[in-house]
């Protein structure tokens, strides 16, 4: 498979004030700390983890909404971090993003037509009439009535708004789409509609997805490969069908066992691995392995030495001293 996106040693630190409201004492919040992975053309890669694990930051850095602190992002043999603004602008038309909250990501003062047309406006594509026609075609593609082109976002339901967001992302014929929790703000019965549509679009348009979500069952369903993040670091990477059967990292195991299954016979007698406590602060992460403070099998070595991301064969990567 040819690689479309290569992320190497990506770091993104944010400066935060930890001195309280009246004192100034800056520290760095390590949102993403040395993350490397590749995405093949036509593949769907799922990025999972809890709030604050850095999954959204990875996505936003890839599309250029954040400048990385260190590391490189190579997209189709071009290093995005070294591009000039103008060159980046051109590449970005092929790299689009679908946002989490369809209520916040559409401008309430613009009509649907203008929202979907805006990317084409920016890149001066076609005449006005051609752009309008393309907008109508896009609306049809995402299952909306093209006659609603002059309506405003508030006239649509959550699921329909997410469709508008997807139409906007498709306007420039992108190759790569970062979907940041595209369904978590939607009702259960609407989620499946959007997921099926994303799958159809991938087939018809040859898209590559980076699918960011915290819902493991949905990620397993849509992705070919899954990357599990914890406190800004990758803990495990595997094919999605294998990671459920043979998780190696204790965090992945806990994450999988935390997902409820809609079957009372299974659910009532399931033995859960329940993690103790909460996510530590990314401003001051634990030494060694970041997960050791909540890990059920932590040993002294975990505090001293940070585990490397090791290849366990056939692309299954894990970062744990005790994984085998």
């Amino acid at each position, binding site marked *: 498979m040819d690689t479309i996106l290569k992320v190497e040693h990506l770091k993104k630190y944010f400066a935060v004030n930890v001195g309280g409201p009246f004192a100034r004492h800056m520290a760095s919040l390590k949102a993403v700390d040395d993350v490397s992975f590749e995405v093949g053309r036509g593949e769907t890669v799922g990025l999972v983890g*809890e*709030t604050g694990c850095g999954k959204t930051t990875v996505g936003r850095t890839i599309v250029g909404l954040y400048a990385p602190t260190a590391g490189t992002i190579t997209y189709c043999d071009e290093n995005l971090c070294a591009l000039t603004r103008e060159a980046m602008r051109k590449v970005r038309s092929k790299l689009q993003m679908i946002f989490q909250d369809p209520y916040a990501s559409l401008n309430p003062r613009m009509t649907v037509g203008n929202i979907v047309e805006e990317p084409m406006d920016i890149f001066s594509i076609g005449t006005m009439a051609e752009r309008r026609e393309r907008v109508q075609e896009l609306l049809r593609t995402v299952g909306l009535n093209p006659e609603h082109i002059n309506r405003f976002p508030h006239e649509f*339901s959550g*699921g*329909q708004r997410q469709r508008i967001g997807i139409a906007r992302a498709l306007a420039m014929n992108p190759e790569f789409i970062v979907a940041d929790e595209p369904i978590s703000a939607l*009702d*259960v*019965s*609407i*989620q*499946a*509609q959007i*997921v*099926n549509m994303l*799958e159809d679009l991938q087939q018809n348009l040859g898209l590559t997805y980076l699918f960011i979500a*915290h*819902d*493991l*069952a*949905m990620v*397993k*369903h849509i992705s070919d490969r899954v990357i599990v993040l914890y406190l800004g670091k990758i803990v495990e990477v595997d094919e999605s*069908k294998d990671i*459920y059967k043979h998780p190696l990292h204790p965090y992945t195991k*806990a*994450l*999988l*066992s*935390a*997902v*409820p*299954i*809609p*079957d*009372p*016979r*299974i*659910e*009532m007698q*399931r033995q*859960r691995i*329940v*993690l103790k406590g*909460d*996510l530590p602060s990314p401003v001051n992460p634990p030494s060694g392995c970041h997960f050791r403070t909540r890990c059920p099998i932590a040993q002294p070595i975990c505090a001293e030495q940070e585990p490397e991301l090791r290849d366990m064969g056939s692309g299954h990567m894990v970062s744990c001293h005790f994984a085998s």
Partner: protein
Amino acid sequence: MDENNVLMRIQGLTTNFHTYAGVVHAVDDMTLTIPKDSVVGIVGESGSGKSVTMMSVMRLIPSPPGRIEGGHVWFDGTALRMPDRMEKDGPNKGMVDLLSLSAEAMMKVRGRHIAMIFQDPMVSLNPVLTIGLQMTESMVVHGLATNKEAWKRAVDMLALVGIPNPEERMRDYPHQYSGGMRQRVMIAMALSCNPELVIADEPTTSLDVTVQAQILELMKELKVKLKSSIIIISHDLSIVAGMADKVVVMYAGRVLEEANVYDLYEKPGHPYTMGLMKSVPRLDAEDRERLVPIEGSPPDLLAPPIGCKFAPRCKYAMNICREQEPQLVTVGEGHRARCFLHHPTAPAVPGFVKVG
């Protein structure tokens, strides 16, 4: 069901919201029985009326625009210790209608007999009061304990829900707690007066999956330890699966199906319930199967469709479904469904157990 075993019976509850655009029928003719010492799950999408039902029970509907237009909420009168308000005879003998109580009497019920755990622990705790003060308040107000006793009991409750160093943490403010911890505090607070009924409104929706697992395990543990009935409201069928004895599926302000937990998941009696189950991927699924979504979107409650409210989205809708609203019919022991497919003359549908 044994008549003496009923803790609460909602009968024909109807709650409307009078807005400028018209009347929103948020809950329409809701009927539900909560047995003593049981866990009942209420499942539905946003706008299905599950929260409004519980707010009506608590008499916390903002009015105007909301108004409880009809129905009764019968609650065990012996537990309430209101002998003079009890029904003398009839099917609701010994029960008190919460909707008939004065605002003052209702205040004695809230927190003491019915407690609520809200969805978002970030906004439901007062940020300027210490956890200790908020924990002890309800016990002192209800006259169950002096300040000192209440403090001691609050410390015990915090320890029970798994907060480390409860003594010290009593003096902390909500912002010093994480999201999961705050939800534990909410649970401790709800249980502090030993209420007969605890209503948990989406208790884990705003939490991460690992913290959600912690809270669900905690609630399961407490269910065994304490003698309260629990109503757990959720939009997620899988959360309810592991906890509830009985599950109620709501849609557009109505109960569409009600069954014990095993029946509901194994032989759903309503196309909406079937649709919900097929539209979520399962973590334990072997292959990647395509999801089967429920097409369309929930109805506008300002102008709900005539007939069955689910008919416009239903794959099996017949002509009658668009003309007349079906009644809840009994399809098994304690299993009721609101669907015409159970009618003897209705066509058979694969995967649908028809009784009629």
